């Protein structure tokens, strides 16, 4: 249907629309009009993606001057594919309505692993191997050499693309990865470079977060994007952690040893080049003297880890211009780091302190350090190295040097002698941690006119502008209009014996608490059909509790009702458990999955319909507060942003809890129980931080329950939800047709809802 959103024609490819989708579009339109950033929370399963696409694409068509591009950042490959599929639907609908061919181009972009069609290279499984294999065939100097020498292999797809594809614009349409590969096969062009090339011209680009946030990649991929673009971060509840991680580096002994070997290789190589072709090094030296910053060529695998604005427009300092000097410089650096790793107790220092130390003890100045990674890239280029995968540890060291010398604020260096898990085996690690999530995302905010941060769980909304340091023009949270109460959130605070349950450190190993948690699980597994997921706060606690339950016979009680599966830290084991869990749900035996908040299961795996009828959150998933990294970040947040430690910890814990329980609800026909089992959840400061769509159904009468009371609420509710429910029942309440939407009073209602949220 064609909607009228605030005076603009919006193409919407479905016949029905949810009221919250309409208000979401209204808010988004306002943000686009204001050319500002916005923060929108809307429960998953209410059609966030299509609302976003419909509105922005219609906006693109209506006002091509103000908005020329939509950049959609998603987290996983399947999600990217989903977005492209929705876009395809929308595009077909627009063509049908307007009666003319639409010139919208939508492209998904992923790593070579997903796009490479070279039969030799794509055989490898590891993405690093594929990258380096591609590099070995397509680097400019390899190709230059291949022109002279026929025996050097080349990638025919890349050659053909380079010959014809660059001038040829991609025909309008939507391309997911399969389409790109097919198109590549058909034309004989390399799909990866085709996509990279098409990204510049396409109207809608869908790719992963890292292409924008990680400065190493964004410099290469996203540099040519124009300002008149709308950037969307979907499922962005963890965006601050992604920002922080993209600028953090960990170095341990193994990496340093490998870096050492890489240096030896480099030295040998330099000697060889000196013997055969001494001009090449001289040329490089001259270039560096002349101060020509190498424009990062498209295939650079070693990119600068710092942000564009921080890259110096200066010459590489004299003491690392010569290849030999640079090698000895970096060798000294590695030795210094190795020396620093020999600690017996944990050390934390600021980048400034580290620089002072390295200057005093290794006579290394700040300036050459800053050029370290760029200089390394340059030497790799001039040595014409083809296999760069071995260099990765050395690149890490160089990146570390560049980062530590560039940013004196917002970073911390922490050296820990032991790992947390094995406190007796010395395994020193040097962490360079970014503490300020706003550093990495700042260029995105300044470069693009509209940035939309959206997710199913963003509450409390006011935290994100603070930690990401931006000013949203619109920030709102939408609820779910439902024809029937299809979520049942409950807070269980005590067991049947009235002993309060909590995962608090002091009481978590108390046998009464563990037993009550077990009893709660048994009771719930008795009355909940099919699948049930239970989240613990950590792997350690999960293991302890399960061991105790086993001794008390609770596990065998559980197994009478459901098969029990446990998530472990091993990826393969976990996916096997997941497959069998789903099998158990399908066959009617029923499954119970014991998982860990922040683990693989809690992010990205949906337990829709019968795969998850109930989620139990055993305790509040606080971060490990003894970690020095976390302490440093909390301290920084307190000093710089005025955020109290406790506020941030609660915020983080509650967003993870919401994320875990949100797994169960994936659409309006779905239904599920969300059970928070900790006495602390009932406190106002925790409860208020849950997303609005959950809070709305969390009445006072459902807080502070005992196990038995929770079961008593569950049974009749499950019966009611099992009653037949069709689309007609939703119509008019949670689902609107065009006529219903256009009726004056429903618009007023929708707008009133939207007003409240402002």
């Amino acid at each position, binding site marked *: 249907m064609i909607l009228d959103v605030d005076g603009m024609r919006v193409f919407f490819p479905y016949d029905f629309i949810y009221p919250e989708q309409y208000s979401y579009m209204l808010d988004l339109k306002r943000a686009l009009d204001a050319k500002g950033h916005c923060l929108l929370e809307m429960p998953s399963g209410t059609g966030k993606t299509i609302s976003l696409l419909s509105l922005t694409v219609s906006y693109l068509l209506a006002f091509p001057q103000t908005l020329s591009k939509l950049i959609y950042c998603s987290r996983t490959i399947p999600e990217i594919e989903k977005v492209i599929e929705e876009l395809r639907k929308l595009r077909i609908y627009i063509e049908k309505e307007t009666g003319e061919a639409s010139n919208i181009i939508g492209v998904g972009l992923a790593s070579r692993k997903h796009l490479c069609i070279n039969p030799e290279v794509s055989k490898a499984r590891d993405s690093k191997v594929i990258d380096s294999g591609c590099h070995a065939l397509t680097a400019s100097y390899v190709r230059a050499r291949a022109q002279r020498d026929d025996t050097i292999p080349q990638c025919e797809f890349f050659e053909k693309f380079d010959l014809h594809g660059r001038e040829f614009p991609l025909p309008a349409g939507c391309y997911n990865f399969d389409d790109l590969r097919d198109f590549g096969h058909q034309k004989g062009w390399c799909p990866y470079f085709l996509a990279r090339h098409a990204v510049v011209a396409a109207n809608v680009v869908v790719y992963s977060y890292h292409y924008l946030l990680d400065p190493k990649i964004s410099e290469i991929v996203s540099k040519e994007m124009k300002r008149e673009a709308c950037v969307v971060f979907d499922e962005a509840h963890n965006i601050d952690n992604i920002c922080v991680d993209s600028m953090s580096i960990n170095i341990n002994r193994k990496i340093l040893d490998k870096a050492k070997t890489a240096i030896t290789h480099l030295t040998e190589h330099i000697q060889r080049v000196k013997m055969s072709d001494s001009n090449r090094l001289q040329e490089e030296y001259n270039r560096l003297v002349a101060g020509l910053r190498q424009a990062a060529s498209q295939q650079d695998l070693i990119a600068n880890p710092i942000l564009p604005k921080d890259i110096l427009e200066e010459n590489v300092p004299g003491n690392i211009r010569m290849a030999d000097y640079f090698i000895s410089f970096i060798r000294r650096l590695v030795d210094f780091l190795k020396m620093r790793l020999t600690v017996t107790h944990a050390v934390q220092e600021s980048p400034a302190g580290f620089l002072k130390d390295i200057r005093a003890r290794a006579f290394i100045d700040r300036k050459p350090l800053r050029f370290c990674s760029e200089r390394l890239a340059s030497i790799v280029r001039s040595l014409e190295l083809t296999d760069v995968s071995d260099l990765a540890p050395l690149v890490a060291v160089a990146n570390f040097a560049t980062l530590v010398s560039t940013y004196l604020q917002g970073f911390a260096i922490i050296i820990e002698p032991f790992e947390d898990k094995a406190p007796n085996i010395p395994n020193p690690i040097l962490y360079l941690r970014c503490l300020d999530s706003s550093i990495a995302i700042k260029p995105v905010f300044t470069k693009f006119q509209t940035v939309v941060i959206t997710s199913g769980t963003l509450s409390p909304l006011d935290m994100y502008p603070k930690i990401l340091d931006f000013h949203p023009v619109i920030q709102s949270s939408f609820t779910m209009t439902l*024809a029937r109460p299809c979520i049942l959130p409950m807070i269980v605070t005590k067991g049947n014996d009235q002993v309060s349950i909590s995962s608090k450190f002091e009481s978590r190993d108390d046998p009464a608490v563990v037993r009550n948690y077990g009893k709660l699980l048994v009771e719930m597994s*008795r009355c909940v*059909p099919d699948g049930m997921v239970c989240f613990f706060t950590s792997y350690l606690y999960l293991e302890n509790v399960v061991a105790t339950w086993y001794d008390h016979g609770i596990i065998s009680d559980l197994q009478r009702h459901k098969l029990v599966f446990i998530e472990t830290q091993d990826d393969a084991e976990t996916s096997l458990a997941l497959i069998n869990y789903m099998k158990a749900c399908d*066959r*009617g035996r029923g499954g119970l999955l014991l998982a860990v908040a922040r683990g693989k299961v809690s992010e990205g795996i949906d337990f829709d319909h*019968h795969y998850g009828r109930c989620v139990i959150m055993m305790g509040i998933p606080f971060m490990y507060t003894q970690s020095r990294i976390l302490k440093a970040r909390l301290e920084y947040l307190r000093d710089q942003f005025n955020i109290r430690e406790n506020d941030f910890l609660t915020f983080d814990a509650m967003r993870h809890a919401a994320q875990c329980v949100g797994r169960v609800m994936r659409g309006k026909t779905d239904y599920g129980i969300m059970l928070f089992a900790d006495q602390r959840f009932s406190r106002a400061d925790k409860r208020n931080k849950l997303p609005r769509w959950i809070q709305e159904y969390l009445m006072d*009468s459902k807080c502070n329950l005992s196990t038995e009371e929770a079961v*008593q609420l569950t049974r009749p509710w499950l019966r009611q939800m*099992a009653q037949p429910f069709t689309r007609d029942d939703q119509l008019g309440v949670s689902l609107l047709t065009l006529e219903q939407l256009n009726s004056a009073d429903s618009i007023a209602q929708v707008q009133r809802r939207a007003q409240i949220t402002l």
Partner: protein
Amino acid sequence: MQEEEDPKEYRWESGYEKTWETIQEDESGRLEPSVTEIIQRTKRRKLLDREASVRLGIMRHVYIILDYSQAMTEQDLKPTRQICTLKILEDFIKEFHDQNPISQLGIITTQNKVAKRNSDLSNNPQRHLDCIKKLQDVPCRGEPSLQNALEVALSSLRHLPPHTSREILIIYAALTTCDPGEIIATLQKVQEANIRVSVVGLAAELHVCKDITKNTGGSFSVSINDLHLKELINEHLEPPPASTKMDHTLIKVGFPHQINADAKPALCMCHLDDLPPLNTRGYYCPQCTAKYCDLPAECRVCGLMLVTAPHLARSYRHLFPLKHFNEILAEESSAKECYGCQKQFTATAADKNVSYMFLML
């Protein structure tokens, strides 16, 4: 059912309930508004959907699979799920044979991971009622096995002639099923045998049950309370529309006469096992003159279907149901009260359903 009926069941023995919280009224005074309304709407839709000119499977062979696992001992239906269900089934069996005289019924129970056939397919209601009575003393134990129960039903339904309607009605209280093998394979077999499986759940929606019903064209429902359960079970009194795979053939039917006067005393064929006294009353098969004391029956000797004309007529009625009522507003009608019950029609009644009146076309 009423609590007074079973004196052993005390209020404090039952589960902990917040009765004061379950009562919630909306503006129109209905309880649990949204869901109740949805149920009402589906019921009306179902009535409207029923059409007159649909082929129905009138010769029904129905197996009732009764879950007899631990879950049946729960007390959310009074006094227990077991007793309550058996009582409803008792009424159902009587009513079923009344409304479907040429159909047959059988009962299977499942507990402790196995399934047992408690009464074979037959059109003798008394036999099933006896079976139900016996079941009242059997304790509910262990876990049920859906697969085993379906296999048992399948083994006898599979060999029936193709013109019959084969049905399974599962009454399921548990939320799990403990199967020896792959249940999907059994479902496949059930589907191939053209058996219609319906499930009435007592606790919650179970995916596998919903799946079976969807694939076999049956219905899936979950009861909210005892009255609703009765309604749901009684929905299966109506013969279902015949599936397209069902054959249509002519069936030989015998109309036996009641021979009196000069008949010699003889044993009836239907009670051979419990040695009834010899008497002269009964119906004689027109083909082999075996004697039966009750009709309808299938002749044990020659396999002829024995019915009376009223039986056929009664089954016939399903084919031509009443026409739909026409809905008109109370103000528009000339009558001020219901012809049948003399209830006044008022436009201001709290429940708007009352303010309509229904006239038959």
